[in-house]
């Protein structure tokens, strides 16, 4: 999705995490026996089911709560979730697709310039924090968007947020701050 700036910054969504409920108890053993592409984990109490198209992995709990990960867009995630609910229906459970919610979106973006992290952190205290001994990226948390942007010195960004719109807004907000810190201040 492009931002509304003049320059075209490619924000690539790499992962969408969504949850939904089936409103009925699910027998994990039945699912493990009669479903293909499933991994049963009795020690944790869940079943992992993988769909091929869209490429999605779902964690299914016996209470009927399901978490879907691996989609590359919100619509794909919804399609995958519905497909999953349909398969469970076919297996014989009285499934009702309800409470579908996208919980987390992960996107990456690349700036065409390097960012001097120490200057970036100095200019944006306390929203930005940078500990080179712990992690090579500076973390910028935007409270009102509930988004976290991790800025690497190579100009790559990793953005996580509750939905794709917030993620795009977060990149737009952070771009001018990064642009200022292209070169080390002492030069």
């Amino acid at each position: 999705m492009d931002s509304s700036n003049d320059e075209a910054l490619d924000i690539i969504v790499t992962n969408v995490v969504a949850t939904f409920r089936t409103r009925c108890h699910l027998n994990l053993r039945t699912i493990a026996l009669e479903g293909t592409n499933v991994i049963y984990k009795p020690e944790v109490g869940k079943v992992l089911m993988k769909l091929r198209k869209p490429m999605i992995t779902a964690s299914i709990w016996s209470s009927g709560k399901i978490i879907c990960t691996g989609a590359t867009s919100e619509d794909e995630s919804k399609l995958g979730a519905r497909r999953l609910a349909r398969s469970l229906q076919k297996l014989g459970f009285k499934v009702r697709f309800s409470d579908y919610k996208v919980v987390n979106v992960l996107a990456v973006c690349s700036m065409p310039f390097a960012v001097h992290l120490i200057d970036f952190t100095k200019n944006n205290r306390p929203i930005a924090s940078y500990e080179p001994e712990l992690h090579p990226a500076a973390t910028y948390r935007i409270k009102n968007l509930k988004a976290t942007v991790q800025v690497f010195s190579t100009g790559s960004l990793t953005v996580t947020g509750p939905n794709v719109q917030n993620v795009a807004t977060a990149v737009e907000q952070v771009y001018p701050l990064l642009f200022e810190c292209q070169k080390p201040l002492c030069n």
Partner: protein
Amino acid sequence: MAPLGLTCPDCSSPNIVEDDLYSQPQLVCEDCGSVVSEGALTSDRGEGTDVSYRLTTAVSKQPCVNQIKGLQRVKAICRILRLNSEIEELAETYYKQAYEHRNFINVSLQKKDALVGCCVLVSCRLRNWPITMGTVSCLLDTDPMLVGVIYQEMVKTLNIEPHSQACIADVLEAHCQEYKISSPHVPEELAEDTKDITKRAVALVELAADSWIVTGRRPLPIMMATIFLAWQSLNPTKLRLKYTLERFCQLAKVTKTKPALKRITEIKEMLCKLGQEIPWLRGVVTPDNAIQQVEYILKYRYALLRRALRTHEDALMDAQQPSCKDFQPGIQSEEPSSKVAGPSQTSWPAEQTTNKSFEEASESNTENNQQPGDEQVNLCSTGAQVSQDLEPNWGKRLLFAPPCVKHPKIRRMDKPALKDVTGEEEISDSEIDSYIRSPQEVRAFALAKMMLCSSDKH
């Protein structure tokens, strides 16, 4: 044995023995078992109470034993690091606050130990005293990651705004003291005064920071690399140049870190680029003979940096000029190269000085060539597409860029995302059937599982 003359009041037997019940001294009759007399249950004990801290209902809570011990550890660490009293008091205050906060009161003892170090760390940061997390985790003998996690939690909980990491130059001075490389410890040819090494290493670190070697990296390997190169360059004899990093670390009695080798290579590369610009040098500067030039490079570093950037700009412009001249009408056989695509990428707002004149020059060229018609535009746009597919590496165009941009890892192409998905489409039965086993498959699977289980048991 009981004192003489005592008899049991019940059975009048003289056999009375001392038999302590837990910590209470008692005199007991041996024959009938009755207690003749008993002493005090408790004695005066200094610290701690008989009721555990969690269950106490005292109105004014005294600090619990672990908190007292923690405060003592804070004091001890401050004394070891020879911090001034201001930092010590600040650390103690923060420890008290954090310990009693609900986020930390119930954590494990290991985390409370890490909290001790974090309080010292935060106080040093606030008073601009250079200290690294590595030092703190070394003193506490804990995992540095744990210290990091607790540090971030603590800063968030107590709403502290620490200044960011002290710049490496300050930490370097303290770090240099560790290296036993001065006269009494090593032979004369290899000895160097710590102050000289520190000064030169600081200059090297600043130069490395200007060329994107420092940002995003851990400080310790960089410090080790610069100290090693400083030591070599202060007296670049054959003997010293032959020394590898490993031998140097053995000599100076420090533990080598592996990334330091990579940093040394990167710094040497940077020195080569700058060494090329020295006017009175003839011949190529290679990583091997760059060390001898370090003194001049550091002395004239700003001038050399400017010259290097200008040379790089000129080189780029020269490379650009001939390909723009080829931009003649009617050329379909010409393959659009990634450099031709440069002008179409002027949409980047980047105003890097290396690219600015490059863009201006190429823009004027394209304006001259735009009359010949649409073929030009097509060539330009297809060029843009080709180059975007190849993902032009802007890092390669710059003289100094972060090393992983200059040498990017080759990424495999990810699967393209499903297009035109709305999320509300119809799902056909046949699709779903592919995810469900048929009854025969189920039976076969169950049988196989049973056979595997039984064979496991045997």
